[in-house]
């Protein structure tokens, strides 16, 4: 038998590719990105130092402001919509329903599809000239208008709505698993106590599922921060720039607007924001020892 140290060595060797990825693709890229954000680079990286100039510009840029606002609107509609709809679906599916499997399959299938597909389909359905609006008018309601997709002040709501269609099933699946994990005796105890079902959900089950809700919210929040594909497919950021989002801001400035310093500044802001929000959660979830023990 080889000595222990030698055996540990093969574990270290096995992790070499991962180390390379961690050092270069994760840590290295992040540092590099932050570095560039403090320069005046255009198309090509330049390694001067201009302080927070790009950040200044970023926060004065209306497009960035709009992007952040849109992200907030999208995020609210998407997260709250998914949670409410997903929770309702999970609860109703949990009522000893006939055909539960079919319903569950239907509710979750959009999640298998990409945001690109989701965006294209809804862009078509909501198409202001040939979509729902025209169909309803053809049914006889001639005054009906539903042209939010072409209205700068409304289009982002529809993007959030389409996102909700794609991801609500995810929440349903997570919460349904949680509901199935609720001790049957709790329900019995509540019935003996004479607590009406809605009250059981509200006062007992929802608090019991809080970690599931947190998981769902985190998953949805990640999707929100990364949101890009669905905007590209559904509106392309339009009408005008009314549905731009930060991720698209970065890509556009990186690859089209030829200002990588501003783009990396925007990316760094996204990075810091995510770090601030997620850091505590991650620490709580994975590294706090007492929690794992109990």
């Amino acid at each position, binding site marked *: 038998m080889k000595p222990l140290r030698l055996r540990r060595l*093969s574990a270290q060797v096995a992790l070499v590719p*991962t180390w390379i990825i961690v050092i270069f693709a994760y840590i290295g*890229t992040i540092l590099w990105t932050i570095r560039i954000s403090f320069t005046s680079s255009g198309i090509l990286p330049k390694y001067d130092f201009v302080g927070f100039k790009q950040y200044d510009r970023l926060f004065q840029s209306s497009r960035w402001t709009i992007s952040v606002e849109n992200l907030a609107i999208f995020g609210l509609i998407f997260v709250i919509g998914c949670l409410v709809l997903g929770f309702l679906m999970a609860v109703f599916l949990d*009522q000893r*329903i006939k055909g539960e499997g079919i319903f569950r399959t239907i*509710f979750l299938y959009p999640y*298998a*599809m990409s945001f690109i597909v989701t965006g294209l389909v809804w862009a078509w*359905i909501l198409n202001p000239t040939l979509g729902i609006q025209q169909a309803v008018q053809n049914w006889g309601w001639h005054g009906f208008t539903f042209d939010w997709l072409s209205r700068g002040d409304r289009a982002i709501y529809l993007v959030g709505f389409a996102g909700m269609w794609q991801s609500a099933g995810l929440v349903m699946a997570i919460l349904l698993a949680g509901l199935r994990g609720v001790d049957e005796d709790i329900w019995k105890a509540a019935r003996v106590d004479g607590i009406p079902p809605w009250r059981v959900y509200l006062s007992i089950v929802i608090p019991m599922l809080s970690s599931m809700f947190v998981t769902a919210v985190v998953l949805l929040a990640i999707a929100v921060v990364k949101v890009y594909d669905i905007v590209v497919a559904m509106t392309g950021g339009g009408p005008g720039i009314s549905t731009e989002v*930060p991720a698209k801001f970065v890509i556009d400035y990186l690859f089209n607007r030829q200002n990588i310093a501003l783009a990396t500044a925007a990316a760094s802001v996204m990075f810091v924001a995510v770090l601030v929000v997620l850091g505590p959660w991650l620490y709580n979830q994975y590294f706090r020892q007492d929690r794992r023990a109990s």
Partner: protein
Amino acid sequence: MTAETQPRGRKPRRLTASRIGIYAFLVFAAAFFLLPFYVMIVTSFKTMPEIQQGNIFGLPTDFTLKPWSTAWAHACTGVNCEGIRVGVLNSFEIMIPAATLSILLGAINGYALSFWRPRGGNLIFAVLLLGAFIPYQVYLYPLVRMLSKVSLYNTLPGIITVHVIFGLPVMTLLFRNYYVAVPVDLFKAARIDGGGFWTIFFQLMIPMSGPILVVAAILQVTGIWNDFLFGLIFAGRDHLPMTVELNNIVNTTTGTKAYNVNMAATILTALVPLIVYFVSGRWFVRGIAAGAVKG
């Protein structure tokens, strides 16, 4: 209490209002979720003149298969009119090696981190964990430059590498969580039987990783197939995956918009993940739960 109301036996089941409400909600929700799919399908079988009339929800009156053949083989992206089929092949070429490699690497990581506790393991874990949540935009530019340096930018190996890099966090977490649940005594027994790092991995761990391998495969296959951003930036013109090709077809400036062709192409693009979804059934749900990176 009179004799006729004397309760006995099964409590009479009334179809209560709440019961009706539940089913009404479920049916309504199902309709909402199915509607886009229905619209995609009917649109793809309509002719353009029919579509112009604006009955988006109507069944095709003038049934045609042409949009499908056009979408498959003739739809134009820019000046190339070769349809979505190019993208299908590209997507497979990207997805198969990328999924295989990232799963393998994730399994090795999970195994090494959970049983061998190598030096710096916590650091790897923390970075990967964080990496799973950080917006990709942070990595993009330096990665473009790095890949260019090693001549991988805009190549097939390049896009595969990118998928492996960004698939690693979730795959590592997945396998780590799975192996953490394996009784450590089993591992100790294998050590006493003289198994080394790789022997234990291939002969003990992999054979008992069946369920998690399936879950990982589902996650990676659908995830990589559905990717748009990386394909757009790293794949290069000759290897654009199907999602990018689809977006190009739909948003190409050539001629008028052929909504029927677009929808046929859209369905074709969604087909692979949908098949995975319907075939894998409950496994898909497990994948979601596992992909939820629970502690």
